[in-house]
């Protein structure tokens, strides 16, 4: 027992001392913090102001372009004049040109620029204004609908709520779906990441031939389990550091940009920011901003309410316990198989012969996720969440939706029963294969190793 602890200690300390461990440990929180900070900084950062000339030969767009905080539109009489201006005045950035109509509805518009192409935000603003103005013209001319009426019509919103008639509670299926998929993905990636570390570790010992010295001191089973457990501890350490460091990095971002966050998260300031640049003079624009207010304010409120209620409807205690359980045993199950695969081969390319078939259940469950999403309690999902090799992914995906207790118990019991069996088989293969060099192992060898007594 003492020796297995020594092996665990070596596996752990050599990996934790590696620079690559710390790089990965630091990169993930930094990336997360950046993902968190960048959109907010971009949204609140003032863009370079653009001045755009509008030349309208169709007669539909004249005076209709609305300037905003970042773009000012000027009507210019003729295209020739506008082109001369663009060529000579540095502060002008582009010309929007709508040619004379050949049909009642114009088909093409042009955006002219000098040397530097206009930014994506200018292009998209021009484009959306073109579409909107044209739509308003058609609505008014053909159907007699004013922009105000239209804004009112499109601002209606009805929320579809899924409810269980027995409990009367909302289903919040979307939130549960996201949580389920994230959990399934975490287990999938964790098993592959740390499982292949086990395999590489075994291959390192085999190819460097040090294993012959070590098996004189420790039993092959102790060496294999020491490695599997040591790497599991490395994985747990990394996850714990990720959680802590990400928390620190995100609160750091929040504190450093406190003013921006207040702007971006407070409902009133969102609408303020949106309306600051443009003065809402016409009734049409007032309606427009009412709509924006709805989208920014009440919409967020409802989504937030959904999110909070949805989260509250999930049994997090059970979720966390089962996540740790399935992650750990899923890893142990597959890591022992990865160790066996590593012992069978002399180099990484050959290893695929064995790793591919043994990871099929994992890959299959992953590929079947879309089908499971469609029916989280269907027979496919149920079966996959009970079969030991697929249950770590499938069951975790299903947990947020609520799973009958007998299915959870069955799945847990089956996994617990399979795990020693799997390790036993893996240890047999490992013991038989670890000192064989040169010959390529076949599936028949595999069965022979398993049958060998002791």
């Amino acid at each position, binding site marked *: 027992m003492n020796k297995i602890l020594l092996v665990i200690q070596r596996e752990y300390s050599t990996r934790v001392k590696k620079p690559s461990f710390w790089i990965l440990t630091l990169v993930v929180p930094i990336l997360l913090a950046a993902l968190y900070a960048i959109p907010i900084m971009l949204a609140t950062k003032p863009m370079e102001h653009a001045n755009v000339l509008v030349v309208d030969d169709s007669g539909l767009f004249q005076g209709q372009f609305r300037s905003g905080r970042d773009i000012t539109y000027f009507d210019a009489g003729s295209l020739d004049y506008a082109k001369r201006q663009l060529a000579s005045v540095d502060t002008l950035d582009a010309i929007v040109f709508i040619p004379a109509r050949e049909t009642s509805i114009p088909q093409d518009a042009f955006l002219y620029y000098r040397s530097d192409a206009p930014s994506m935000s200018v292009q998209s603003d021009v484009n959306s204004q073109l579409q909107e103005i044209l739509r308003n013209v058609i609505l008014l001319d053909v159907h007699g609908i004013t922009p105000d009426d239209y804004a009112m019509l499109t601002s209606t919103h009805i929320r579809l709520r899924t409810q269980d008639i027995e409990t009367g509670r909302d289903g919040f299926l979307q939130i549960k779906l996201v949580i389920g998929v994230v959990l399934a993905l975490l287990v999938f990636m964790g098993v592959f990441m740390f499982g292949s570390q086990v395999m590489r570790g075994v291959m390192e010992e085999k190819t460097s031939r*040090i294993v012959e010295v070590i098996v004189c001191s420790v039993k092959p089973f102790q060496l294999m389990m020491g490695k599997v457990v040591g790497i599991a501890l490395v994985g747990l350490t990394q996850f714990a550091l990720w959680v802590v460091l990400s928390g620190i990095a995100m609160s750091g971002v929040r504190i450093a940009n406190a003013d921006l966050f207040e702007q971006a998260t407070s409902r009133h300031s969102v609408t303020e920011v949106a309306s600051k640049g443009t003065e809402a003079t016409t009734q049409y624009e007032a309606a427009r901003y009412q709509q924006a207010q709805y989208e920014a304010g009440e919409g967020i409120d409802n989504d937030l309410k959904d999110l909070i209620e949805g989260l509250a409807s999930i049994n997090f205690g059970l979720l966390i316990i089962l996540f740790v359980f399935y992650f750990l045993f899923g890893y142990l199950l597959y890591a022992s198989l990865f160790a066996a695969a590593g012992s069978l081969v002399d180099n990484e390319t050959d290893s695929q012969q064995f790793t591919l078939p043994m990871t099929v259940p994992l890959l299959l469950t992953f590929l079947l996720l879309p089908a499971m999403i469609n029916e989280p309690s269907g027979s496919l999902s149920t079966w996959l969440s009970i079969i030991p090799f697929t249950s770590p992914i499938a069951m975790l995906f299903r947990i947020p939706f609520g799973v009958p207790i007998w299915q959870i118990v069955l799945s847990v019991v089956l996994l617990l029963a399979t795990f020693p069996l799997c390790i036993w088989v893996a240890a047999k293969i490992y013991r038989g294969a670890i000192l064989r060099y040169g010959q390529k192992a076949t599936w028949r060898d595999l069965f022979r190793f398993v049958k060998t007594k002791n």
Partner: protein
Amino acid sequence: MLTIDNISKSFGTYRALDGVSLHVRRGSVFGLLGPNGAGKTTLIRIINHIIRPDGGTLLFDGHPMTDADVMQIGYLPEERGLYKKMRVGEQAIYLARLKGLDKATAEQRLRQWFDRLEIADWWNRRVEELSKGMQQKVQFVVTVLHNPQLLIFDEPFSGFDPVNADILKREILRLKEQGATVIFSTHNMPSAEELCDDIALIDHAQVVLSGSLADIKASHPGQDLDRIFINTVRSY
């Protein structure tokens, strides 16, 4: 010290050892000779309990050999190997602790050995930074560090330059003087003649010649060990 009685081992249809019996006297240097593929390494692995024989028994100090007895062996395999990324000192201490030494004793003995072999400044270097010969020197120290009663060296001189091979020979003789029993396999007949008290010649999975070096040389007058080896293997 060690009695090997009627050991057999097959791999599939290939017979690696066929009824091999030998006796290694306590405090002697025993040479295991034979052409490539004769079965020497298989025999050594069986003594180290790395593989199990199909038949036959091993007696260690007169009793059937147990896993605990294996801890009294220091084994230097033919294919040397260390963790390439680990530092020399740290790795040597780890391997010594696996053999049952506590950390302080292991470090103290290692420092002594490293000083005597003048390799103390390798302590903090990674194994991959050392040349092959240097790695072998480190591995030799690791093999003998726990003061094993029985030392088994598989081709100890391969990969060493003459100067270092000579240092190694002197260290082996020093260990013998301190009471260790040594088994080593080699192709190098002059070094076998120089070091061995007893030898055994294995060919095609069987012992074809064994006994004390003096007796064997007396029964083959005018021949050196090289000649005896070639003639015996050929005539067999």
